[in-house]
């Protein structure tokens, strides 16, 4: 399952980061931060080649022995990063895509809040619970919300 989910703004500053393991949060910060390099590169290539609808899913950015890092960039250059555990071999590409799609919808809902100022940190509870849901942490709480 996902161990860390991040939303990165247009200017590559963090808008939202959630880790399962808060103690090692900084480690994930570094991982996600460095993966921006690759995201940027992939976006650059995308610009050059395809003028038509770009594939939002960027695929795996890089992998280490412990984690696989996947990226997704919206048309407005908002980046989503999901860190998965490498040991979880059963997770297929399609499932990762699904996770990103969910995240994208949750994000779109969060920024539709009229009180949200674009560029600010995301502090929506609903977005938070959606992320927790993707990370598989928040089954009960989601029910409560509903």
């Amino acid at each position, binding site marked *: 399952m996902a161990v860390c989910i991040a939303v990165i703004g247009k*200017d*590559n*500053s*963090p808008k939202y980061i959630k880790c399962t393991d808060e103690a090692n*949060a*900084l480690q994930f*910060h*570094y991982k996600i*931060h*460095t993966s*921006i*390099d*690759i995201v940027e*590169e*992939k976006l650059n*290539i995308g610009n050059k080649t395809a003028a038509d609808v770009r594939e939002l899913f960027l695929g795996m950015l*890089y992998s*280490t*022995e412990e984690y696989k890092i996947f990226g997704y960039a919206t048309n407005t250059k908002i980046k989503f990063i999901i860190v998965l555990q490498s040991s979880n071999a059963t997770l297929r590409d399609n499932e990762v895509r699904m996770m990103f799609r969910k995240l994208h919808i949750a994000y779109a809902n969060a920024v539709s809040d009229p009180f949200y100022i674009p560029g600010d940190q995301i502090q929506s509870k609903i977005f938070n619970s959606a992320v927790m849901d993707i990370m598989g942490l928040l089954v009960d709480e989601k029910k409560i919300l509903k």
Partner: protein
Amino acid sequence: MRSALSVILSSPVPDNKMSHPDYEQTAHDHATILILLKPLGAQIKQKTVTRICERIIKCGSRFSVIDSSNNTREILTRFIKDHPVENNDWGDFQTHRRLLGLITFGKYENQIELNELCRLHETLKVKYVQTLYDSRAILFGPIPSENLNEPPPSFTTPHNFKTVGIFYADDLCPNLEIQMSQCFNSLFWILESKRLERSREKIDKVALLQAPFEKKDFIGLDLESRNNRERCVGRATKHLGDLCLQAGLPGDALNNYNSAIGTLQSVNDWLWLGSAYEGLCAVSALILYPNMCRNVPLQRNSSLQEGSPGKQRRGSQPTTTLCAPPTIETIKMNMPNILLPEDICKKYREAIVHYTKYQNAGIIETEASFKATRISIEQNCTLQAASFLSNVLFNNMTMNEQEKIDRFTTLSDLYTSFGYLRKASFCLRHAALRHVSQYNPNLDWQQCYNLLLQATSGFKLSLDPVEMSFDNRKGWPSIQIQLINELVAAANRMGHPALATRHLTFLLQTMYNYLTPTERKDAALQLQAVSQQSEGSPVPLVLDSGRVIPPANLTNIPRTKSFALKNLQPHLQPQKIERVKEDHGPFLFTPINFGSLERKTTAKGKVDYLWVDGDICEVSMQLVNPLPFELHVSNMRLLTSGVVFEPIPESITLPAESGTIAVTLAGTPREVGELEILGFSTHTLGVKSNCRLRHIESMPHPLYTVEIVPALPRINVETSLPRTASFSSGENIVTSASISLYGGESAECTITITNISQVPIEMIEISVQSTLDSLTESKVFKWSNENLLTQLPLQPQSSACITLYMYAAMEFVASQRHDITNAYQSQSNSLISHSGPSSLPSRLSTSSHHTKRYSELTSSFRSGTSSNSSNSLSSTRLSKLAVPIHASNIVEGQLKIKFSGSAGLASGYCRISSVFITIEMLRSVQFTNWDVLPAETPTQFYLVLDVINMTNHEMELHYTQNKCIYMEGRESCRIPIPVDRCPFNKLSTIDGAGNNEDLQKICSEHIASLADLKWQLVGTETTGKATLSGLALTQDMLDLVRMSPLQWEVTINDVVFKAQDEITCNLGECINVGVGVSNALESPLRNLILSINLYQDHHNGVNNYRLDTRVSIAGANKVILPTLQESGRAYHECRVVFLTAGQYKIDIQCSSRESILDSLTFCSELGNSGHTWRYIPPIEIKVEDC
């Protein structure tokens, strides 16, 4: 990329691994001849070595040779400064790792030194004896030698020195290039011969070539097996390929590699297969990208650093031999085996995968990754380059810390070269931390700090706080915070507390919002500790490396909640002296706004008041201490620009986690002009900070502009009267004065104005402002302007005095309106002849019970209905004087002193100080009631007043020239005052339109001007004057007060009667009474009834008019005069015979039956009676018995 088989095939103990990785290698280095450049001995100067090396590298790094078959060979060389001999062990595996040439430099002064240099050279030769082909020694001696290769005369080389020496006397080194190319040529030819030798070896006789760690893998294997033979052949072919490549025959090398790959693949010799692939890639890269090779590999630390491959940017670097790379098609025709560009990296990948299978080949693998990365960069395939580099990171080699550092810095360089700054910084930071890791035997905090500093850019961490402001900050706060903390730690440990202070200050300034309260506290405490060693100040720090660390300021500690300029105190504010407006023509307003743009910009942060040169000006701030401990902030000053400003330092201690605390910063402007207030400076936690408003969050203006006007004088005002306890607020008030005055009393107040400034006062204007109407005001306050002007100019520290005369102007007549209504009411019921209002005695008796002094008294004078209306009365008075009812009568006034001088006056400014004056007006005497009575003479009448002494003191009341009365406190009494009747000339102002009010007014003014009541409180000096203005007069009173419009001429027995004449007659005598009436008015009188009545006055208030039996009248005693023209005269006579003796009076009166005078029409409610004019006094006749 990593093989799952990793480590399986390697021996577990890496005893002879290559311990000196060369991360700078490129694929092109496979084709180079390795030459070591080494300075010997301590004599030679570094500069000389550098210069010589440069020359050698320039001439030798790429040269051409004509081979035996007349083909031109392009030979590449690589010069290095150091070569661990262990690396030669891998020379069989990859021939370019062998050291083939040696060039040493040395300087000698005498034979011994020369011998030593020779010995050292020979030692080096021995060290690399296994691989070395040729060597040269460049020796600098004291004298030149005739033959370059021979030692100079008187010097000899030792006999065991078998090297070609090159002897120079100075470092100009003529012919160095020729000498060197000889050396290079010789190296080439030896290499060529080795290659030929290899190529001629019998294919089935070749020995097994081995990588260093493989030696014992083959123990016990059947060396004669077919498999092994294949292996030998494959390895030898690959080796030959290496040699061909070095010898400038890439085509042959390609063929050899290709055949080696085929052979080795069949025997699963993965390590060598990998190297064959790598060789293939190297040849292809060399051909496809001829310009990629390094140019100046030795100058890592020199100014030529830009050229070193680590810093290579995308695309090939410019070299002197730059030529357009040939197209792939042409190359493919010449060399069919060459790899296509996209295949190079694929093959490299394969090679690396094969290497990973051997743990001992870790270095080879890492080097291959770096080489592949460089090619990827050349091909602009950054993602591929990144994947090669990330592979390096996974390579879990046991390395010492230094090697790790090298690996990380190389990684960082490469990442930087293709723009992956984040990853580069990540690696740099790791390298930095390796410098100080616990496994590192030689900790180097300085290096750690330097690397960390280089890493900042990748984390978007600018050390300039301006670039890290809230609006334009970038990057990841949590990572940045960690990095800053590491910088602080490194700076601390390397013994540079100033840097630590700076970084901590920076942390608290820029990252404040991202720190948790605990972190803030920790950082603040740490800063406090560090700054004790080195105080922080807002100046840039320059590091040894030349890097400048910009200043940081503690803008958040203490936190500024508000920052506002204060206007001067009201009495110090400069005011524009109003001038008579110049005539600007008829167009006062223009819709065309000329300076509109300009105005908008200046309005920003511009305050709309003025400060004065030389006066203390203040800024009020609200500070919050966010830290959980007491914060001492010292030396707070204002930061300004523009005109000269002297700030006054301020210190403050903020309690832990305080709420807002107000602080006032002050200073004195010293020039005239615009002053810009930029912020303030503080000194807290051992750090001096310049907190500029534009760097502080949520400040409305980045700076404030205030205009400074020229110096103005200041004054101190004192009065001779005691101060007021409290007064209603007013502007500019500097002092106050209060006094109690009884009505009609006057007092003086001396106001002393002292100039307490350094400039003279040249202008003073005094005015009074109060709620009184201007007429009363001018009565109450009086002063002499002339007296004041004579005292000007007022020099500094000198004083001027002005006397203010105050007078308690008061209404002495109580409740006049009531009296009118009351009098009217009473008159309608009572006879005219009543000498006074009948209710008076009862009123007087009630008044004595009263103890309260003021308005309650007056209201309670009225019984019954009148008390209802007292409220309305007092409210009318209230509105007139604007004082509270209970205070009876308090007059508040402000004496405005407008003054100016020197430069301030010249530029049209002044200041206004006010003295607040409170006059409590106490009632002295009050006239509660009044009436008029006819006097003994027709020209006068008696004004009868009921006077109350409203004070608690005994009072002496002078009411005429020589009459006075003593009254106890609160006593009332009745006094008659003879007053001249109001002459007609006063009334003449009333013309046809005149009405009752005008008449009333004139009459009461007439009374007020004549009646003069002076009072003195017995036993005190208090004296005063009561005026009778405001008396309300009824119609009847008015008739008395006015001179009669009829002039009487009475004759008794044809003798003109005079007042006070006594007439005596005898009983039965006939008296002839003649009455002449003349009209003194300027209009005719109509319907007059002239009557002559006789009566007896019993002197007890009863007049007996029924005298039928006592008097007989001959002739009409009543005549009607239809009209009496103006200045006309009428005469009537009758005779009277008295039948009994006694006192008689004759009442002669003339009454108008209706409105007689159009012009004097009033009192319609009295219409039945009309006017009655009497002859006053009545004629008295004494009738005696005969």
